[in-house]
């Protein structure tokens, strides 16, 4: 039924010297190899998505004081970004107040008693994050390994299809893995290569079938926006930096020439 490597080779060598041999594939290859691999790949992707949803970690909460700390940082950033919507006096008033609050660390969450930042390795949240990351990776790797074994075991050395467009010889390694022929036209695709192409190229199909972007947005919205985690800037340094930024910040109020602007806009 399937066209073995040997028969491919003999077909090529049987052709006249210098001419490219045209292969004739058994049409049943489409139904018994190409289609099953594709279907199994799509179904596995869908199943993997549902498993990922099931093992996904719940929204992680934080103490309220951490939220307050980050909110004061965002407040300072909002003043820097939107201060132009206030009058000069209002901006100055807020600027002085925020510099005092941020430089004094009034809303800073206190560290350990010895003043040291907590070790990232002893943080239970970190190990939980790493565990959930490992679970996600396993949910990716295990099905891929099983399907790769399945394709290699049953369809090793199969040539499945011919791409309808020309390609440079550089693609030969990618498209014809498992088929040891030096002269076979690069457009022919082997079964294991079809598997790899499917692994890399099915994301748009999954997006189409499993599009649930709203739930992702909701999770993102409900995640508390805090800072100071491993690898992130520490709030104390951020607050001091913002206090410095506010000290040198200049206010250019939107109320300057507003009468003129409105007259020009609507007259």
């Amino acid at each position: 039924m399937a066209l073995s490597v040997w028969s491919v080779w003999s077909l090529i060598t049987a052709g006249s010297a210098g001419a490219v041999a045209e292969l004739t594939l058994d049409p049943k290859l489409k139904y018994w190899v190409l289609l099953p691999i594709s279907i199994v790949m799509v179904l596995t992707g869908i199943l993997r998505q549902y498993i990922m949803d099931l093992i996904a970690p719940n929204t992680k909460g934080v103490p309220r004081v951490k939220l307050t700390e980050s909110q004061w940082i965002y407040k300072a950033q909002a003043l820097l970004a939107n201060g132009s919507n206030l009058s000069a006096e209002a901006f100055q008033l807020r600027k002085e107040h925020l510099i005092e609050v941020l430089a004094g660390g009034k809303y800073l969450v206190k560290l350990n008693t010895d003043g040291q930042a907590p070790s990232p390795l002893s943080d239970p949240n970190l190990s939980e994050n790493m565990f959930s990351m490992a679970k996600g990776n396993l949910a990716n790797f295990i099905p891929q390994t099983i399907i790769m074994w399945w394709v290699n075991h049953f369809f090793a050395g199969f040539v499945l299809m011919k791409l309808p467009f020309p390609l440079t010889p550089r693609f030969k390694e990618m498209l014809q893995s498992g088929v040891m022929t030096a002269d076979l036209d690069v457009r022919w695709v082997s079964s294991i290569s079809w598997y790899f192409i499917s692994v890399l190229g099915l994301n748009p199909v999954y997006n189409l079938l499993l599009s649930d972007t709203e739930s992702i947005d909701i999770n993102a919205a409900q995640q508390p926006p805090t800072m100071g985690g491993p690898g992130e800037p520490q709030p104390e340094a951020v607050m001091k930096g913002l206090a410095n930024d506010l000290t040198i910040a200049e206010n250019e109020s939107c109320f300057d020439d507003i009468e003129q602007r409105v007259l020009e806009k609507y007259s």
Partner: protein
Amino acid sequence: MDAIRGRYISICTSKVYTQFSPEELMELNDGCKRYMQLKDPSLGQAQYFSLMEMLFYLAVYLCKDVEAQVLYNTFRDRLGEDSPRLYGMKSTLLQINESDSAAVEFIEKLIKERLEVDTDSISYLLLQKRLIAIQSKNHDKEWVVRQLLNLIEKFPIDPEIWWFAAQNYFELGQFERAVYCLEEVIQLTPFNYVASARLAEVLYYKSMRVDKSVAKTKATLQNALNNALRSVELSENYLKGWSLVALTSSKLDGKNKILQLAKSKLQIIANGSNAQNKVTAELILKSI
């Protein structure tokens, strides 16, 4: 179908239904239920739950307690109880079925034992607002303001709390503080033309009632005019904005061009707007 879906979603997200008259509430309730029965395939899951939440509160407003309880049970069975929205619904049901104090006790316990140490950006804030709303009935405005200030200290970037604080300060006659709160709202939501107009209004009242010297009154009126102009700069046909522009510029010297512009805009609104805006614009034009 898209238009119907869009209408219900905007009513739901803007929470404008909280201001509806009983007839409008009934119409919305029936219409939304009919729409939900159509099983619109374009309605996302989050949108579906938002509409269900709106139906819950509509049932509460319309005194359909059993229906509200059924809706809450559906949510709880589907999503579990651990959600700020579900806490809000549960406290509402406690108010209906038991008493305000039961709802207060439930929220206070939840905040003290759970949310103070493990919360997200929605839960704590939502339940604290709810707590203040329930308790404000039994306390005076000074108490409400104190609670709001406590909450502002914890969550300084929530414009809703600042707005409510401004409202309370205004009602207490503390215009300076109301102005500060409204400026915070504008700083956090810079394109909020409604807040700009409200700030102009509060400044106008301040200039009329508080400021004693002529120079100070003029400065405050100029500030009010600036904010009113900002609101109409952001929204061309905003009636309240143009009314305040006309009102403040009529009391200031050398603002004839602005005054004429405001009058012409009010005339346009009076000619081509809805009945309510038309009457208001005509009244303003007569009074200036």
